[in-house]
């Protein structure tokens, strides 16, 4: 057996300017998708514990559908499938953001539900007994505590969704992986380029982890 390869650092560094053009797309899809997904998650997560089955039921269906199907299938459906229904094209960036939002939204719904349900019943009773209305009790007593407990799980979901955006190279969004594929097609430096792409994802996800752990630590005191 004879190994005959070498890692070409120069090639890796040379690819960086081209790869970095994909970074804004990766970040945009991730953060826009997660921001919308967070709103969806709050709405459906709270519906999930709502007072009537007519409120709970749609939330259950939404969560099961978008949690139970692959995000790749979801984005393909949105990008290639939906235009047939709508009668007009959907651009790849929008499709990517929508897929992340809907997929992360389903998971975040469950995180929100779990976070709110984890708050002891006595907290709600104390708020109500002081004369706070049920919405005030939720806003000032339950939600701040629930949100704090949700941070680790939300961070986890954020990291998963950021990595999921790499799948959207298949619909031609010029994000990190897509840029890499284009670059490799001309240079045949797959080893170096995918290594650099992995490093870039790691840089994004580590930054997020760090930011969240700071937030969590601050949250314990403040």
């Amino acid at each position, binding site marked *: 057996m004879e190994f005959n390869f070498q890692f070409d650092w120069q090639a890796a560094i040379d690819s960086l300017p081209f790869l970095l053009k994909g970074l804004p797309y990766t970040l945009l899809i991730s953060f826009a998708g997660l921001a919308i997904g967070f709103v969806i998650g709050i709405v459906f997560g709270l519906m999930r514990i709502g007072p009537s089955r007519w409120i709970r039921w749609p939330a259950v269906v939404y969560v099961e559908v978008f949690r139970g199907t692959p995000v790749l299938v979801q984005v393909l459906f949105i990008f290639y499938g939906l235009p047939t229904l709508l009668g007009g094209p959907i651009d790849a960036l929008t499709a990517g953001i929508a897929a992340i939002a809907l997929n992360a939204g389903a998971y975040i719904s469950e995180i929100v539900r779990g976070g709110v349900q984890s708050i*002891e019943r*006595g*907290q709600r*009773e*104390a*708020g*109500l*007994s*002081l*004369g*706070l*209305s049920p919405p*005030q009790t939720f806003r*000032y*007593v339950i939600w*701040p*505590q629930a949100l*704090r407990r949700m941070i680790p799980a939300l961070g986890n979901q954020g990291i998963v969704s950021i990595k999921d955006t790499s799948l959207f190279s298949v619909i031609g969004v010029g994000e990190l992986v897509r840029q890499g594929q284009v670059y490799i097609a001309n240079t045949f430096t797959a080893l170096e380029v995918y290594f650099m792409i992995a490093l870039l994802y790691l840089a994004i996800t580590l930054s997020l982890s760090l930011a969240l752990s700071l937030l969590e630590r601050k949250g314990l*005191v403040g």
Partner: protein
Amino acid sequence: MNDSVNRQEATQASGTSPIVRLAGVNKHFGRLHVMQDIDLSVAQGEVVVIIGASGSGKSTLIRCVNGLEPFQSGRIEVDGKTLLPNGASGKSLQAVRTEVGMVFQQFNLFPHLSIRDNVTLAPRKVRGMTRRQADATADRLLERVGISDQADKHPTQLSGGQQQRVALARALAMEPRLMLFDEPTSALDPEMIGEVLDAMRELVNDGMTMMIVTHEMGFAREVADRVVFVHGGQIVEQGPPDQLFDHPRHERTQAFLSRVLKH
């Protein structure tokens, strides 16, 4: 001082009508009949202590008074507002809660807020007080319960006894007309029970109307105007503490007291 004078005037103005009146209240937990035709009135300024074994329905009884427990039939009047069965009370529910303070067994302080903010939250959000006004009230009340130097801390940094005194100050900040206590010392280490009872004693001296569920029989005998013994979801016997503790008429009461007073 001023407050208790005002209260006496209010009592006279409203005649002798009770501040709390439960009439024919029934509550079921599934097949369990936890409150059976409960009739109970509490007069302005009266201290009523409710005793009974665990599971007798005594906590459920006072939790009905501020609508934390729904009930299935009968009616409850609190300070002129009516609570109806099956959660049909509508707006009077929140109106009652703003007039009725409650102290819980597990304190239930808000762990994400400072001690001061625990006390000011409801006055600011419900009464519309400014932060400055609410802070002034909070600091006065915290001093009264002996916690003034801890106002910037968070609940978990306080002992159980201190937390319960903060819970008392928090309830008093809404200037309630009636205070409910649901086993306020049952979760405390023995050496901290005294400080909480002292704070409650002070409230009794100020003329506060109080309904207290407790296992502290000595305290009950000392502060109660009336002791109510509950068993199996029914009021079995009630009367002045001396009569009920020394000459209980009902055998259930005798049996209960002989168990709790022996040790």
